[in-house]
């Protein structure tokens, strides 16, 4: 199982180590540093690195490498999933996950890691339960602790651990009973030169924030459940009910959790909400190129597209760009050759555009790679797949909860080739 964990920052310093079995010398990370040096960018460091006696599995998040050391045959996905869980937990505990924050809370981090793994076996990874065992630091609690000498380690057995619903603690009480569900969809798409879709798929999740007293039993049904190609549930969802009736039936964990993630890939169902008109030309002879892009709405079901952001990695031969946007602000970094344009909202009457010229390296032949345009955007109150929640019911408790459902569509990896 998982032997040790090293946290390494992007300049290659190990700033935290934790061993769950015998101590593994940090020199094992030298193999990792080698790989880090070879990779051009931090993202390209391979996640599995063999060394003569160990294997190093790593994830890269928040500019920190989380490197797990294993010695025997352990499913790598298991380790990688766990590492991501560690990052999520840190984020949950401290708000952000960064080197200074981890250093500031090193004792809590250490206690949390100790609770998450025992001898390399995962122990408590649900943040609800962890928080019962080790309370997250808050300014108020630190002050109170210092004055009263009390601790931030819970001294009760986490109640949920043993029941049939290990994800929920007993004796939950709220004065306002509320249940909110956010349906969030991300479109991953590749659009080719001519504007037709090469591939498009939707990754959707339903994130919930449930604050209900007692042991509520909820059911959530959809208007059009058949849309979903593949679903992954939180362990609380009763799989049988979904199989037979396409209804989500569950006793929710307390607080925030991801109820469901789903995948819609059937091509014809994926509506593409924006289009990009582009005209980028490098002329062979002169050292000037033309650049022009326009962004416009396509299938938005009448909703506004906001938070539009266009980024593009320009070829190396581009020295500088002189552009004028019709709205928003733009920057071009002549070192990284990254063009970004913060567009904002799209007004269908007056489409935003960015026009101008590029100065190219004199004498060099015209760049052979075409820049790909990366698009980010948000659409509120729309699930682009058309998924709609039908109703939410509660059983097992008598009070009447306040219910709310929100929809949102975002761009995931949305790329337009030119």
């Amino acid at each position, binding site marked *: 199982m998982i032997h040790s964990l090293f946290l390494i920052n992007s300049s290659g310093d190990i700033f935290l180590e934790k061993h769950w079995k015998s101590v593994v010398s940090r020199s094992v990370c030298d193999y990792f540093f080698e790989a880090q040096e070879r990779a051009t960018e931090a993202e390209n460091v391979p996640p*599995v690195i063999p060394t003569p006696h160990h294997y190093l599995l790593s994830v*890269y998040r928040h500019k920190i490498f989380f490197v797990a050391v294993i010695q*025997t045959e352990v*499913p*790598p996905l298991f380790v990688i999933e766990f590492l991501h869980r560690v990052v999520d937990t840190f984020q949950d505990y401290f708000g952000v996950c960064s080197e200074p924050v981890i250093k500031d809370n*090193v004792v809590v981090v250490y206690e949390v890691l100790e609770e998450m793994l025992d001898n390399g076996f995962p122990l408590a990874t649900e943040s609800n339960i962890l928080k019962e065992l080790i309370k997250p630091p808050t300014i108020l609690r630190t002050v109170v602790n210092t004055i009263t000498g009390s601790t931030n380690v819970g001294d009760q057995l986490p109640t949920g651990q043993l029941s049939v619903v290990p994800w929920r603690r007993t004796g939950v009480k709220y004065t306002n009973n509320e249940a909110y569900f956010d349906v969030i969809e991300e479109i991953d798409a*590749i659009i080719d030169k001519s504007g037709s879709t090469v*591939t498009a798929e939707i990754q959707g999740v339903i994130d919930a924030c449930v604050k209900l007293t007692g042991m509520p039993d909820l059911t959530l049904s959809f208007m059009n459940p058949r849309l979903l190609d593949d679903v992954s549930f939180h*362990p609380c969802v009763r799989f049988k009910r979904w199989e037979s009736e396409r209804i989500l039936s569950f006793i929710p964990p307390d607080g925030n959790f991801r109820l469901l993630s789903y995948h819609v890939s059937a091509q014809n169902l994926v509506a593409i909400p924006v289009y990009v008109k582009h005209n980028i030309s490098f002329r062979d002879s002169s050292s000037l190129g033309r650049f022009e892009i326009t962004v416009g709405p396509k299938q938005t079901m009448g909703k506004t597209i906001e938070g539009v952001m266009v980024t593009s*990695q320009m070829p190396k031969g581009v020295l500088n760009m002189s552009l004028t946007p019709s709205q928003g602000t733009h920057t071009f970094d002549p070192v990284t050759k990254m063009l970004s344009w913060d567009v904002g909202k799209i007004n269908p009457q007056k489409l935003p555009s960015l026009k101008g010229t590029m100065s190219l390296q004199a004498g060099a032949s015209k760049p052979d790679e075409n820049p790909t345009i990366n698009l980010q955007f948000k659409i509120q109150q729309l699930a682009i797949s058309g998924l709609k929640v039908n109703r939410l019911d509660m059983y097992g408790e008598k009070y009447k909860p306040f219910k709310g459902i929100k929809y949102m569509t975002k761009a995931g990896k949305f790329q337009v080739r030119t």
Partner: protein
Amino acid sequence: MTDSKYFTTTKKGEIFELKAELNSDKKEKKKEAVKKVIASMTVGKDVSALFPDVVNCMQTDNLELKKLVYLYLMNYAKSQPDMAIMAVNTFVKDCEDPNPLIRALAVRTMGCIRVDKITEYLCEPLRKCLKDEDPYVRKTAAVCVAKLHDINAQLVEDQGFLDTLKDLISDSNPMVVANAVAALSEIAESHPSSNLLDLNPQSINKLLTALNECTEWGQIFILDCLANYTPKDDREAQSICERVTPRLSHANSAVVLSAVKVLMKFMEMLSKDLDYYGTLLKKLAPPLVTLLSAEPELQYVALRNINLIVQKRPEILKHEMKVFFVKYNDPIYVKLEKLDIMIRLASQANIAQVLAELKEYATEVDVDFVRKAVRAIGRCAIKVEQSAERCVSTLLDLIQTKVNYVVQEAIVVIKDIFRKYPNKYESVIATLCENLDSLDEPEARAAMIWIVGEYAERIDNADELLEGFLEGFHDESTQVQLQLLTAIVKLFLKKPTETQELVQQVLSLATQDSDNPDLRDRGYIYWRLLSTDPVAAKEVVLAEKPLISEETDLIEPTLLDELICYIGTLASVYHKPPSAFVEGGRGVVHKSLPPRTASSESTESPETAPAGAPPGEQPDVIPAQGDLLGDLLNLDLGPPVSSPPLATTSVQMGAVDLLGGGLDSLIGGPNFVAPPAATVPASLGAPIGGGLSDLFDLTSGVGTLSGSYVAPKAVGSISMDLQLTNKALQVMTDFAIQFNRNSFGLAPAAPLQVHAPLSPNQTVEISLPLNTVGSVMKMEPLNNLQVAVKNNIDVFYFSTLYPLHILFVEDGKMDRQMFLATWKDIPNENEAQFQIRDCPLNAEAVSSKLQSSNIFTIAKRNVEGQDMLYQSLKLTNGIWVLAELRIQPGNPSFTLSLKCRAPEVSQHVYQAYETILKN
């Protein structure tokens, strides 16, 4: 107020100050001090000097303080074992605390303290905790057994913890079941032969029930365990599949992949006509696709596994091509994997799309990726015939870009296309020739030269082109030189009149001016062919070449089947069987897919199915890379009694050569004779199994030497008997021998004496005296000896395993008192126990037989009807080995306990015992 304050140092000396604070009366101050200590520990500072002071803080009601002290203990107990004992009392007390959280915490922490002395005290509390009323404590205790096993395996077995752990599989709480399975799996991994997870339909049923209710991590353990089970028939397989399928909808990708493994494996047993089979196939696709939308690291592992799945069952993902399309900001390792899978899925139906994508990729920035994309276009052409023309024109477009590396890759793949579709696309040769000058990579140059040679008759200036290459002949890499040689010979055969000079030039360059034996040999062959029989030369050199197969890099089917059983593991990421990389071959059990069976028939368990391994053989004796070879030798050689699992294996040359030509020469094995104890010369009868064959890379076909070993008759000293057979066509002279450094410093005591030249097919037997004064290097396995034999033709390398008893010296008899003291003095973990089976001798006979091989009996006792022989022996390098041999009259199995300060020799001493006693 953050923890960073714990890192601040003062000038006075941090340790000193902490010490004072730890001994403070104020609770709060103590806790702060412990926190500082922990903080220093996490960043790798050594704070072990504070051990006694920190341990003093352990007796507290404050749970946080207790936990912090525990954290400290786990880290430093190993370096301060004596001090750690001080903590034991508190642990034992905590194990009886009314609060289950504290009980669990205590048992958990105790297991993490890797100090032998503590483990003894751990047993009783652990036994109680394993039967605790609270499942939280039970589940923690289950893991603790695995920890303890890691520290002291023998203790765990003796205390019966393994059985208790097995009972926990039937526990009422699913988490306990999951942890018990996890612990057992981990223990089983270090004991591949043990039958710890003995699965039967009842236990499977319990696991499946627990599967639905336990945590995600528990589900992974249980699924991985299920995958090792072989259902008795297709109905059972189907019912397990039905209960595992819901796991495909889990949010944790590791659960999904483990479930996929179980399904892929058990599907093998289902009949393809079954409706359920089709349903299952359909259910597998969506979760695999979803894995690709996870974080890039997860994607990478998923893609490596999908690569296997696609090869085994292409039908699952055949409609999902698009999800493998590359996004430009994917990490490079994801891009390359996606590309690989795209080619595997390419078919007539989707080839247009794939090609459009590949062309897009070929203009990206990353060089590695672009190269692979270009290569992929070529592979598509070869795989989908209808698309070949489109592929070729795409490649030509790419060549027009004049981007250097793109052109080179394109030429390499076009060569393959020519081979697959001869006489179809030769019209493009002209375009290729235009780019001749820009080629600077050996592979591309070689490919271009091949094309020119192959189509010499259509290229008007072929001779000029090749002559151009010939100018810098000596600076070219071997690959290019060989191609150039062949190409010019082809040219000569096609246009003999104009190119005579050229061919002579290349032949003389290759044969006279080159140091490379491959090149020289090939040069000579062509030369002789051309000079003796040009017609035959034409037939040979211009023979019709076999078509190349459609897919060049498919994984070999048996390996693929094995890898399918390892979906989700490191093996699947590396596409190598675990035996190829798991450290020391430890824990390697070959797995194979279950055979398809009808309802009534029963099948062998997969563990007994590995190909060719003779039953009863201990797989770990043969070094991993020699598995196949060892088996072959054993099958091929002499009487079964004479083949204890000792085998020679070739280290560098691998098994291919042996299979190719060497089997007939495997007459005997290398044989070593122990220096006999008294004046009676001991002959070890039949040769010890194993053998050596010609370890000679026969690319040129010039000659081969074969050596083998026969039973020797040397007396008094160590010697090695070699039998050298010349299988070459040439006389061999100037023999010399050299040993690589080895574990016991074995080295030839005299030069290798081969008096007369060895003519073809002649055999000579030599006895080479050895001494043990050579330089020492620890080998793996310990008794491995790497030898080089040189003669006028070449150097031949082989390696052999020698029996250890040749190294037992005559003064190996220990004094009785000394024996007792030494036995006690050697720590228990150095003791190894073995069974010697089927040895019908009585104690006296055993004793005298062993004595003749310098194993001395010091004392004999009779305990409860069993004869106990206490024996000692000494190795040439002064290592003493103490042995206790338990013989039960009438029972042919003996128990041998060995104690030695260097425990790694035990295994080999045991083999020596076996060999001596059975001869």
